[in-house]
């Protein structure tokens, strides 16, 4: 059974202007209980790679520059 690429809108946004992942920060990736954030190899900024979020907010609370915003996932907001 071949796989399709179905798109989905993700709840967590990273302000690339504020994110300092290019200076070595990985805090949000480190703390996320669901392990759904990654640093992009293209932009060197954090982003939500997997739409598997418990909207719990450690990523936002622990980000040193206030770059992360957690929104409520579309299906339940």
């Amino acid at each position: 059974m071949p796989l399709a690429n179905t798109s989905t809108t993700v709840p967590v946004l990273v302000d690339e202007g504020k994110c300092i992942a290019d200076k070595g920060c990985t805090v949000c990736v480190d703390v996320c209980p669901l392990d759904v954030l990654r640093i992009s190899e293209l932009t060197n900024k954090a982003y939500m790679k997997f739409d598997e979020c418990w909207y719990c907010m450690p990523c936002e609370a622990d980000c040193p520059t206030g770059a992360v915003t957690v929104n409520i996932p579309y299906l339940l907001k």
Partner: protein
Amino acid sequence: MDEIKDGLSEIECDVLVIGGGTAGPMAAYKAKMKNPDAKVVLLEKANVKRSGAISMGMDGLNNAVIPGHSTPEQYTKEITIANDGICDQAAVYKYAQHCYEIIEELDKFGIRFQKDENGDYDVKKVHHIGTYVLPMPNGETVKKALYRQLRRARILISNRFMATRLLKGRSGRIAGAVAVNTRTAEFLVVRAKSVIMSMGAAGRLGLPTSGYLYGTYENAANSGEGYAMAYHAGAKLANLECFQINPLIKDYNGPSCAYVAGPFGGFTANSRGERFIECDYWSGQMMQEFYNELLSGNGPVFLKLNHLHKETADHIEQILHTVERPSRGRFHEGRGTRYHETMIEMHISEIGFCSGHSASGVFVDDCARTTVPGLYAAGDMASVPHNYMLGAFTNGAFAGEDAVAFAGEVDFEDYDREEVAREQERVLAPTRREDGIPPNQIEYKARRLVNDYLQPPKVTRKYELGQARLAEVRDDMENHMVARDAHELMRAMEVTSILDCADMAAFASLYREESRWGLYHWRTDHPERNDEEWKCHVLLSKQDGRMTCEKHPVQPYIVPISEEEKDAYYKQRIKAEA
């Protein structure tokens, strides 16, 4: 990150703790405090800094037994009645006697508990009978405070390792566990003299009505591995038919939370704004009334605060929107709902296993020992009923102390290398396929079937159909599931636990041929409670490779329950005025 790598390493320790949420850190800490020479390893699927139910913090202690406010006898009685008589009181009584020491210890760690103007603990009444709820004004610091202690005690922490199976020796004693790295798929075998499981609830069993797989009440990382691993290791699991079902904010699926709002005058109301239950403390009996109201002409059900002073309602909002589930404020903002203006629509959660709120868990005694020598369980996945957070801490402490003593008396147990090789093959099977069905689709289907067929009311014929459909999904999972990277492999392994839990939920529910615990085990074909035949535990286990159930007597009560008291929790409904 996420590429699948080959790798297998082995480490040794005296005590292995699996799951670093709430019970786990306390277990590891207590084991190390009791024997500073012991090597204690804490293994966590996520990151101990922010993992588990309390990842952001907690609003308060739901079951604090504090001298001057309540006694261990009162608490033991209350929980026995709330849990419809099926209660080995020794563990509850021991918890009640010692939880105050844990509060004092947490206080030393820097976690504050609310006091009144006289410096006395400001305990609130939420339960049906006694007074046990203690607010935590700096509840958001819990995880940080715990983490500091773990570092200070030099506990060895392995984050991002997901345990998949326990290892036992030929004698039947515990030998360790197998884990897989969630970002590289490399394997880790941990040999240990004793193992403590604290992997939390089976929170991804039912599907939230939003359809979002991760929109669960429980921390969605808690997918039931603890239950599945205990099962495959031959440990007994108790009363799995006593589901966890919670009254929640609809769609948001977080606590509403009457425990916080109740003492200020908030309550659960029907669409007319009227109170219909006496007590907002969560129990199956209360949930039955909630369910009845929801389906009656009086539904939906709401959290009502709009009769309170605006300042009071705002104050409650401020607590509820900052600590435990801080995204709640954003949810209400999106909906345009303010507590002082409108009632907040509530709903019933998906089903799960969780002794923290109900009673389904790995069967343990009053020292957190399971039926497998050297294997312990604490917190939401162990069978001590209505544990909550303080129960996780206190029973975690008991587990840590007993497990380190056990480790001091035994040597490493040998395990079968072949078993590890077989486990590697099982885990990696989805990565060996070129194409197939991704874990998210298998998970969605399994959990949708759980909702369709296993959610109460429990109907025998529906259960049988559900079992047949779940078996088809299992076949797909075992033969066609595909995982393309290490992250997806973690999800694939979680699906195997979810299906194991679904099978156990169905099997245990069919075995108990009566109704008990209100909505949690409401069997329409056996609508009455039958104390003569079923005032006992149901223990489920794997024997000769097959799922089996047996009856197991409830230990004689330490604190007697009189005939008049025993059904107090069934008297929840407010009498209609004539």
